[in-house]
């Protein structure tokens, strides 16, 4: 269920667009910030709130890679392996992360603390290699630096 303050946030955004359908992405962001993912019930609630079919909301959620339909780890480590990061050693970063977190790429640790994902170019090419945790970017990484960063995130 969306919290009242979040329903208000969505209502307030209505003035920005001529249709309520345009609020599907902003509403999904608000829902995901609240719950960490977007459940089917949440999609139904958004569909009702915005007067669009549930199937439409589901279609949008599954199209965009940043929306999660299932809960993920408390910390989401997203590591870029695209060309600029690859040329500056992202392979060693991935290997170190897998070892350190005890998960393979795409998995969540058994204690639900960490999810490790490979992502496409994040726009950190000049400060490669990198990973992001939430909105925070960690750049110019070396395997040695990673342990300190992860310890700081606990």
């Amino acid at each position, binding site marked *: 269920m969306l919290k009242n303050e979040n329903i208000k946030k969505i209502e307030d955004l209505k003035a920005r667009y001529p249709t309520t359908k345009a609020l599907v992405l902003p509403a999904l962001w608000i829902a995901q910030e609240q719950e960490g993912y977007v459940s089917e019930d949440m999609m139904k609630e958004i569909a009702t709130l915005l007067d669009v079919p549930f199937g439409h909301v589901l279609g949008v959620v599954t199209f*965009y890679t940043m929306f999660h339909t299932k809960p993920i780890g408390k910390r989401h480590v997203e590591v870029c392996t695209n060309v600029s990061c690859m040329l500056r050693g992202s392979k060693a970063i991935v290997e170190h992360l897998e070892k350190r977190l005890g998960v393979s790429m795409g998995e969540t640790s058994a204690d639900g603390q960490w999810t490790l994902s490979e992502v496409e170019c994040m726009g950190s090419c000049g400060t490669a290699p990198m990973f992001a945790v939430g909105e925070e970017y960690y750049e110019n990484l070396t395997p040695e630096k990673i342990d300190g960063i992860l310890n700081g995130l606990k």
Partner: protein
Amino acid sequence: MTMDKWILPDIKDLHTITVYESHGGYGALKKALAMKPEEVTDEVKKSNLRGRGGACFPTGLKWTFMPKGTEKPKYLCVNGDESEPGTFKDRQIFEFNPHLLIEGTLIACYAMGITTAYIYIRGEYGKWITMLEKALSEARAHGYIGANIAGSSFSTQVYVHKGAGAYICGEESSLMNSIEGERGYPRVKPPFPAQNGLWGNPTTINNVETIANVPLIITKGWEWYSKIGKPSHPGPILVGVSGHVNKPGVYEMPTGVPLLEIINTYAGGVPGGKRIKAVIPGGSSTPPLRGEMLEGVSMDADSLKAAGSAVGTAGLMVMDEDTDLIAVLARIAKFYYHESCGQCTPCREGTGWVYKLVKKFEAGKARKEDIDLLMEVATNIEGNTVCALGDAAAWPVQGMIRRFREEFEKRTVSSVAEAAA
């Protein structure tokens, strides 16, 4: 390399409105508001500013496509989706000079009679969205956004729309669908956005860096601007250098700087003094150039076109002599396979097929005939899709085969067996 910097000048706290205003910020907006809208468009047209998002389309000309005297609402979309691998320039504008972007957006709105602008930013840039939102609130508080801007009769709104992780939404019609709350599928063109864009209304889409050039043109005049860099593609340009260089980063320079000067002077050369094997000059979709082809090639549309590549987003990726180019191509192919929206069969099926073939070379399991097959598959994607993602997926493959055929030949089953014998 001593050129003044206009888009990202070295001014402390320029991201705040007080510092921005103390350096003449929002002066271009006031100057524009005292001109007729068509005079503003004309100034941009004469300046010869060309889009910085990849296609190099003349910006002023694009603005003239917007209908005049229509009853319909008109929209501006500022494209900050910035997802082309190797590209990280717009991010610098959001962080270091957001008011320049806001000022350019407002001038563009005034010139085209637009009352709502959406700045579309990729979802991964949450931190930079917060920075831009802060600048937008400051601009609102100072009377630059909303009703009767800077005391004039002109009113417009500027909003940020956050993407959610889809490269395709940097394609202008996908971007509009994404704002409308749809899946990011590209639309068939025509009709073009200037006739039938957001919610069926006249719409212009410009890249963040393009819009950030507009205040400069208004302040200094088109004649001054058109003399910066290459006359056919003038102005300052943000070049993002990454890969095997000593000082990767975004560098502002006039268009037309030789690629070798960018690599060796701006970016401090290749570590260990190694030879350059290849460069990808303008983001992952632009065809690679061989290191020995770089002499005489410069960072502008015409020079790179003549060299058989493109300026793209000016995201220059440098690869030294030890680079496994097949592994690089495999990663690029994986990217397009992942990012294809799946709407058109040649792209949906072709990008996956291309990826599998390149992986076969990477594993040393390909046959010699697979080189031609790979070329054929790529060529059957190119030009056969609704949007340019298909082309973007095909060009690096075709370019890599044309320029580095020996790399593929070395990785066939028979070559690998021969080398092992």
